[in-house]
């Protein structure tokens, strides 16, 4: 089961939206039956999951959800969503493989306003929620310019609704620690990187966390919100194909965690 999420940037005048499709990217490679599903939105209130049934998505259709149309109880929350069987209730621990496909079943996850929009095709892989993740994200996408703002976004979702703190350190390529920030589990964490404008010379910044991880995203915008960019970094093993690619992830993480 893949999960999806809305990136709320209402504090800087931006909206979020997501296109959810109820059909896989390559029908021929999908063995399961396509059926009507319930869209369930949920968030953690620190102790338990709260959920909201958005509606039914018919098979072979798509729906665009905009955060402006969500009920008040979801405003300002880190909202995740998934597709559930019509006759079942919210259960983060369900074992459905409905949105597991080859290639990955994704949603278009957008940050937007009336002028423009930026997005990426993304998902929060279901197997992440039961794992103790860690993070090494090497990003060349932080843009240094006085008229821009850059944000590091780390999306974390865990099967346990408890919200726990964890630290993310930001390093340069020489392994100098430039900053350390507190993030939270079950949260779409956002961190403004603009104070870096005068201190970094490297093109590559490294974001690391030994105890937790998630999906790392990089968002940039002109301060007038007329142009924006959103993209994620590859996991370390994505630079390899065939063979035991996870071995390389281990090398890389060992290096950056030393």
């Amino acid at each position, binding site marked *: 089961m893949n999960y999806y999420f809305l990136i709320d940037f209402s504090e800087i005048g931006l909206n979020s939206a997501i296109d959810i499709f109820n059909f896989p*990217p390559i029908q021929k490679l999908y063995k399961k039956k396509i059926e009507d599903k319930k869209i369930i939105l949920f968030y953690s209130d620190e102790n338990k999951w709260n959920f909201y049934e958005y509606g039914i998505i018919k098979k072979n259709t*798509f729906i665009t959800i905009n955060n402006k149309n969500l009920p008040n109880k979801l405003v300002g929350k880190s909202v995740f969503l998934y597709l559930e069987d019509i006759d079942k209730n919210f259960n983060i621990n369900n074992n459905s493989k409905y949105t597991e496909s080859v290639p990955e079943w994704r949603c278009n996850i957008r940050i937007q306003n009336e002028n423009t929009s930026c997005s990426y095709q993304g998902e929060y892989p279901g197997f992440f929620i039961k794992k103790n993740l860690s993070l090494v994200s090497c990003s060349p996408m932080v843009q240094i310019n006085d008229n821009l703002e850059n944000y590091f976004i780390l999306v974390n979702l865990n099967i346990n609704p408890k919200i726990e703190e964890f630290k993310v350190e930001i390093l340069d390529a020489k392994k100098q620690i430039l900053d350390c920030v507190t993030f939270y589990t079950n949260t779409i964490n956002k961190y403004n990187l603009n104070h870096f404008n005068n201190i970094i010379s490297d093109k590559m910044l490294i974001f690391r966390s030994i105890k937790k991880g998630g999906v790392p995203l990089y968002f940039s915008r002109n301060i007038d919100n007329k142009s924006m960019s959103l993209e994620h970094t590859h996991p370390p093993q994505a630079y390899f194909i*065939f063979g035991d690619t996870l071995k390389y992830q281990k090398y890389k993480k060992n290096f950056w965690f030393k």
Partner: protein
Amino acid sequence: MKNFLINFLSKNFFRNIRNFLLIKPTFSLKPQNSKYTISDFFYWNQDNGFSTKFMLTNLSSQAYPDDNDIDYIKIIIFNNNGLKIKSISYELNPFQTIDLLFQDLNVSGYGSFCVFHKFNKLNDIILKNSFMAERGYVGYKTNLGVWNFMHGNKYACYLNDKNNIKSILSSSLYKFSYLPQVSFLDSKKTLIVLNNPTKKNIKYMIKFFYSNNIIIKSNTYNISEFGTLELSVEYKTAYVNIISNLLLSRPIIIKKYKTYFDIFHG
């Protein structure tokens, strides 16, 4: 014995059989020799006010950060018709990343490019039956806007000893239909970009749909070897279906808005 069997079954002959029988299909085949590194077939655009840059980084430092290898890089650029217009070499020090600005390369128009790496520690990767792949980050901008980044998303091709680019994209006797899971209804104009890292023509059929799943029209497009196609999406199209003999016909999508654009792989 187990390793022998794994190696035997992972040969391209069996990959093609798997693809034919649709048993754990694989979107990419193995290069002939594991000393080669793999590249995406990246899109560039220096047309109509667009600028492109590639974040060129020492890939050895991504794989073996302890080893401090120099990365010897070759970049090959094609125009939209598939004509090779530039071949450039770079050497990057350990952990070095540079902005490769296309405006400095004296190229115009649009097309695709590959980035191939070579470094000492590749031998170790070879022994482990893996291949290093360039799937880096390309930035696009117009005027004073931000660089809008998109990462590579395909294991497309490799460069052999004779300096020939060889595609590793899997194809089939069957037609495969790829549906980018994105709606086009919020944008003023949408472009679909498809390119061809192979030495054969690729024929794509694209079906354009309204949001109620009614087909608006379907068209066929041919892309010549190493060529790139930019295609305007029909007005009121909600989504598209891209059909070809490639197992993965994943396009790049450009959505244009009032003040800027979005670019991402579908």
